C-alpha cells in the first residue's frame, strides 16, 4: 500500500495519483483496447453490449449515486436516445451529428423531468419517474408515424465519413471511444466544484443551500447529464440491436439498470462498471443455476424473475454497498493483512426517528 506524501495540490486534484490505482486502470484500458485481437467476434459483440451498459449505468449513477435523486424509469431515456438516433439516421443525418443530437434530446427531456420533480423527494420521485417511463413507452408504441409503433424500427447501419462500420470490432472501438470519453469527463466533473456541489445536495440540502448552492439548478443539471449519458448509451445500443421496439425499453429494463447501480455499489464510477459486469454475467449464472435444479423446477416459466428478485433482495440485505463495497473490503484485506479487522465496516444500528411533523 503506497502512502502518498503530498507536496502539491496536483496530487490532490489529479486522477490516478496513487501508483497502484494507476497500474490497475491502465491495465484495464490496455486490455479493453486489445480485446478484439484476443477474442472471438461473437464475444466482441457481447463486450460491446457490456460497454453500452456501463454507459447507461453511469448515467443512472450520476442521478442516484452522485446527486441523490431516484429514477425508476431510466430506460425511457435509453428508448428516447435509441429512437431519436435511429429516426435521424433514417432521415439522412450523419452519424456524428445524429448521436449527440439524440443524446441532447434525451438530456433535455431529462431536464424537464428534473424540473418537474425537483421538489419531490425519495419515493415520490421514484413513482413519478416510473410513471414517466410507462407513459414514454406507451407513446413510443402509439406514435406509429415516427417510431413504427409496436412493429419496431429497423436501425440504419453505422457510417462515419462514408465508411460503413458494420463489423463487430469496428463498432466495438467506436463504442469504447465514447465510453472512455464519458468516464473521463464524468471523473473530471466529480473532482471539480460542480461534482462536489452534487454530492452536497445529496448529503444535506439545507447546508448546501446556505452555502450558496442553487439546489434546483444542480438537481436539474444532474438530471440533464444523467439522461444525456443514458440517451447516448441508447443510441449506441440501437446499432447493436439492429431492430428496436418499445418493449425493449420498458419497466424491466429500468429495473435492470437499477439493479446494476445497486449491486455495483452506489456512489462511484467503478460501481457502475461492476454493476454492468454483474448484469452481463447474471443470465449466464441463472442458466447455470437452472442446470443444477431438478427439471420440474427448472422448466417453470418465471424462474428468472424469481432469481432476479432474489438476488437483488440478498444484496440489499447482506451487502448494501454492492460489489464495489465487497471489492473495497477485499482490497483492504489484501493491503492490511494480517491486521485486517472486519469491524471496520460494521454498520451502526439506527432506529427510526421521523422527520414528519404533522
Amino acid at each position, binding site marked *: 500500500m503506497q502512502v502518498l506524501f503530498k507536496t502539491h495540490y496536483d496530487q490532490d486534484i489529479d486522477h490516478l495519483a496513487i501508483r497502484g490505482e494507476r497500474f490497475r486502470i491502465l491495465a484495464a484500458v490496455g486490455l479493453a483496447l486489445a480485446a478484439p485481437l484476443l477474442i472471438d467476434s461473437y464475444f466482441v459483440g457481447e463486450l460491446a453490449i457490456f460497454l453500452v451498459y456501463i454507459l447507461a449505468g453511469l448515467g443512472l449513477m450520476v442521478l442516484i449515486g452522485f446527486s441523490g435523486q431516484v429514477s425508476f424509469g431510466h430506460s425511457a431515456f435509453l428508448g428516447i436516445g435509441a429512437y431519436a438516433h435511429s429516426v435521424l439516421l433514417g432521415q439522412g443525418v450523419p452519424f456524428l451529428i445524429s448521436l449527440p443530437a439524440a443524446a441532447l434530446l434525451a438530456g433535455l427531456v431529462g431536464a424537464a423531468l428534473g424540473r418537474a420533480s425537483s421538489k419531490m423527494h425519495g419515493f415520490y420521485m421514484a413513482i413519478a419517474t416510473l410513471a414517466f417511463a410507462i407513459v414514454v413507452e406507451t407513446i413510443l408504441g402509439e406514435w406509429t408515424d415516427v417510431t413504427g409503433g409496436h412493429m419496431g424500427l429497423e436501425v440504419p447501419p453505422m457510417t462515419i465519413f462514408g465508411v460503413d462500420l458494420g463489423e463487430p470490432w469496428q463498432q466495438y472501438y467506436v463504442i469504447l471511444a465514447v465510453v472512455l470519453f464519458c468516464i473521463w469527463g464524468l471523473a473530471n466533473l466529480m473532482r471539480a466544484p460542480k461534482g462536489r456541489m452534487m454530492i452536497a445536495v445529496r448529503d444535506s440540502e439545507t447546508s448546501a443551500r446556505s452555502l*450558496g448552492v442553487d439546489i434546483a439548478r444542480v438537481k436539474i443539471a444532474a438530471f440533464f447529464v444523467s439522461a444525456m449519458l443514458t440517451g447516448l448509451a441508447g443510441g449506441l445500443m440501437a446499432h447493436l440491436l439492429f431492430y428496436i421496439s418499445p418493449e425493449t425499453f420498458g419497466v424491466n429494463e429500468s429495473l435492470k439498470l437499477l439493479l446494476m447501480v445497486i449491486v455495483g455499489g452506489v456512489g462511484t464510477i467503478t460501481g457502475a462498471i461492476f454493476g454492468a459486469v454483474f448484469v452481463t454475467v447474471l443470465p449466464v449464472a441463472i442458466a447455470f443455476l437452472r442446470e443444477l435444479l431438478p427439471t420440474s423446477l427448472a422448466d417453470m416459466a418465471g424462474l428468472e424473475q424469481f432469481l432476479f428478485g432474489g438476488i437483488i433482495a440478498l444484496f440489499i440485505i447482506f451487502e448494501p454497498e454492492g460489489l464495489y463495497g465487497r471489492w473495497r473490503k477485499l482490497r483492504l484485506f489484501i493491503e492490511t493483512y494480517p491486521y485486517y479487522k472486519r469491524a471496520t465496516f460494521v454498520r451502526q444500528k439506527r432506529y427510526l426517528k421521523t422527520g414528519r411533523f404533522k
Partner: protein
Amino acid sequence: MSELVVENLTLSFGGIKAIDDVSFSVEPGEIYAIIGPNGAGKSTIFNAISRIYTPEAGAIRFRGEDLLKRRPHQVVDLGLARTFQNIELFENATVLDNLLVGRSARIRSTWLAEWFFTPEVRREEYAHRRKVEEILDLLDMQAHRHELVRDLPYGARKNVELARALCAEPKLLLLDEPASGLNPEETTDMSFWLKDIKEELGVTVVMVEHDMNLVRRLADRCMALGNGQVMAVGTVAEVQGDATVQAAYLGSAAA
C-alpha cells in the same frame, strides 16, 4: 451604516408567534450576542435572516440590501454565512471536501469547462484550495484535513462547521450556538478563534449563545429574547442587570 438591520420581524408557526415584532441592528465589526431561554425564537431569527423561513411581517436589510427579496442561496453572495445548531455537515465527505463546498459562492467555472477540466478550472482549484488551507491554518485543523466527517468527534465537527462558513468569505457570520456541547478547553479555544475572526478577518459576528461566560468575554453588545419578543438590548452588563431578563431566567420574587 449598520451592517444588519432587522425591523419589526414577525413569524408564526401555525397559531404560535415564534417571533413577535423583533427589531435590532448590528454594527460592522462587532460581536453581537442573542441570548434567551430555549424556545425564545433565536434560531428562528437566524432561519429568517438566511431565508429558510419567510416572515409574515417586517424587513431585513444587510448592508442596505433587502434580504427578503433574495432566495436562500443568494444570501451568501451578499456576504452572509451561517452555522447550524444541529451540525449540518456532509457526513460522507472529507473535511477538505466540506470546506471546498463552502467556496461554492465564489465558483466561476461552468459545467462544460469542468467536464473537460480545462487549465482554467485547474487554476481556480488551486486558488480555492489555497483559501481553504488558510482557514484550516487559522482554526488549527490541518491534521483532520483528509478525515471523513462522520469519523470526527463532536468538538471537531463544530470547528469544521465554523470553518466551512468562513470559507465562503463572509462579511457577517451567523453562529447558532457555537459553543454548545463543547468542554471548557474547547470553549476557550472557540473564544480565541472568534476573537481572531473579528480582529484578523474583520468579520461581524452575530451569535446565539447560552454560555454566559463566553458572551461576557466576547460580546460587544447583546440582546435578550423571550417568548419571541425583545426583552433588553445593550452591553452585556446592562442586559444582565435588566429586571425583565432576570425575571425570565430566574423568576420574579414572590410579592
